[in-house]
């Protein structure tokens, strides 16, 4: 039986080979990447304990990313659902519109410390790429963003941003021409260029060190939220549930990090269940999947019997990934977090309800999955239950998709 340890950061609970629970994670990479990954691992271990580095990080988080993001009660939604009290961490107010900025800032700082001049990154919905481009422009790093050709077509506004920040956007035309292929291509590029280039993985996936850097970066979310919760309630509520969508898992990892040891805080991860009438999904922890190696680490992967990645389907571009962070595989297996999924239809309904009732909060389709779960469970919960939803993206980026779905003219 795999067990979570108390008092030790989740990101450090792996074994000497980088496996959480002895089986999730690792650095399953080509030998050519061993050196840069060891270098990065060494350097990050130093930096994360270096006060000057922390101060630098905090400076950028505060002044550029805009920490802390608001923590607010959703009075209208609470009243409407008539059960648990619904709160929301408005992470979408981070610069760029999502939590992806934390990871991007930290990677850019690391790249600078390593003396690299190039930085490469993968992107699906385009958020990770946009924010890496933004940060890279600021630090004078030349950014190269790998993006599936199909995603380039459907996420044009983010592509525009990347170009505005002077990044080179590399269309990936292999395979399904989406995120999976973009990550693969980015890793290929890094294999060739790691002497002068740093690589940023856009979520808590990839080889162990990337999982760690990403989760360490997004942990800012729960660090600042813990203070906000205590400010609001005077103490940590007896009965609290933290609901977060899970694609790669970086947002959830950051939202939950500081609460790991608080057993009265339930952690609920919501994956993308895909369309109601389709067998396809992007929910490896909830639906059919198998342990596998994808992009350098062992995790649950949506794949066929022959080990080939299967096509996923979700209305939310950011959740549309066949794997999931080893951290979440671990949290599931230890029972610390529970995972479920919401369908495309439920996410759209949640988006509509929250936008119309709350106004200030209009979640993108990823957090709309988390809201869907909150909407499902809140009515049957007591009024002293506190549900906190991480609204980690803003609907503007999904305008096209939602409008089409709802029959708005756009």
């Amino acid at each position: 039986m795999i067990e979570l340890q108390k008092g030790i950061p989740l990101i450090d609970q792996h074994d000497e080979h980088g496996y959480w629970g002895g089986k999730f994670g690792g650095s399953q990479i080509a030998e050519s990447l061993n050196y840069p990954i060891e270098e990065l691992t060494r350097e990050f271990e130093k930096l994360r304990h270096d006060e000057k580095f922390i101060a630098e990080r905090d400076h950028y988080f505060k002044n550029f990313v805009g920490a802390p993001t608001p923590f607010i009660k959703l009075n209208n939604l609470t009243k409407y659902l008539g059960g648990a009290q619904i709160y929301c961490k408005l992470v979408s107010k981070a610069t760029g519109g999502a939590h992806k900025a934390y990871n991007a800032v930290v990677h850019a700082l690391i790249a600078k410390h390593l003396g690299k001049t190039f930085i490469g990154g993968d992107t699906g919905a385009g958020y990770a790429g946009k924010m890496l481009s933004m940060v890279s422009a600021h630090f004078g790093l030349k950014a190269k963003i790998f993006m599936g050709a199909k995603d380039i077509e459907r996420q044009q506004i983010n592509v525009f941003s990347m170009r505005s920040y002077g990044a080179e956007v590399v269309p990936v035309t292999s395979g399904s021409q989406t995120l999976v292929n973009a990550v693969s291509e980015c890793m290929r590029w890094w294999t060739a260029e790691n002497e002068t280039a740093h690589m940023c993985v856009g979520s808590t996936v990839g080889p162990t060190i990337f999982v760690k850097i990403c989760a360490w970066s997004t942990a800012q979310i729960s660090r600042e939220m813990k203070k906000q919760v205590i400010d609001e309630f005077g103490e940590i509520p007896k009965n609290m549930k933290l609901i977060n969508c899970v694609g790669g898992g970086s947002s959830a990892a950051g939202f939950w990090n500081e609460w790991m040891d608080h057993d009265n805080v339930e952690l609920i991860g919501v994956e993308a269940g895909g369309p109601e009438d389709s067998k396809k999904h992007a929910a490896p922890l909830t639906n059919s999947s198998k342990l596998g190696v994808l992009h350098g680490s062992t995790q649950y992967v949506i794949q066929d019997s022959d080990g080939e990645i299967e096509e996923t389907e979700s209305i939310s571009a950011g959740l549309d990934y066949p794997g999931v962070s080893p951290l979440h595989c671990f949290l599931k297996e230890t029972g610390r977090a529970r995972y479920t999924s919401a369908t495309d239809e439920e996410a759209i309904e949640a988006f509509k309800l929250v936008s119309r009732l709350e106004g200030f909060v209009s979640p993108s389709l990823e957090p709309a999955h988390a809201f869907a779960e909150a909407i499902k469970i809140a009515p049957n919960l007591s009024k002293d239950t506190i549900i906190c939803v991480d609204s980690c993206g803003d609907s503007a980026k999904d305008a096209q998709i939602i409008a089409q779905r709802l029959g708005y003219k756009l």
Partner: protein
Amino acid sequence: MSSDTLKQKFSELKKEGLPALLTYTVGGDPSKDISLEIFKSIAESGADIIECGLGHSANIGDGAAIQDSTYRALSNGIQTDDVFSIIKSFKNEYSQDVIIMTYQNKIMSYGEKNFIEKCVASNVSGIICVDYPWPTNMSFADECKKNNITFIQLLSPTTSEERLKLILDDSHDVCYYISQLSTTGSKLKVSSEEILNKFNLMKSIAPEKNFIIGFGITLDTIQSIKDVDAIVVGSALCKEISRSVNESQNPATNIGNMVKQLKEKLTALIGF
């Protein structure tokens, strides 16, 4: 047993003063039947050892040429068992050793134990797994050894000397040195001296092991590094298969011709 034949092949060639010529093509590309014909044609054209790719879509070590071959094979429905059956058919008629080159997820999905059993049953001599690095591959490598299959450790230009020693210490008879920092199919961007220096270093650490050198090797570059134990040509062949398919030519014939030319380049050198 397979592991022994591989060792034997190397010592034979060493006597002739020739590096082993290895070819890499993707099993099942462009189809099960033609792929088998390609292997036969390769064998008849002078290749010493045959590397057979067990294609995986998330092949993060490979460049465009091998990706294309892989995509073609997978699109045509080629599965792991198909590749084993191609190898088995090939081995029924030909003596050349076959090494499988693949990715960890293919093995994991098949089950490590099953995979090794199937290798034995199909007469596979060795396994290269791109994303199964030392030391996490040790138990699998040991299992291979027990079954007389050579697990071929990978080494790269940035592998530190310390790590090099540790890996070589744990390695089987054959190792693979990635000549440069790149995916497969890139132009050779390092000098032959650099490669040979590294080869000599490795040889000095483990004189009894055989080192395959790969990445960036084509008709144009093959002569410059002939003083090694073995040379792989892969992307150049995969590209030729793509070209043949696109132009409706017979890939087996074309590949055979290319392998002949490669072999000639190598043997031509002995004349001097």
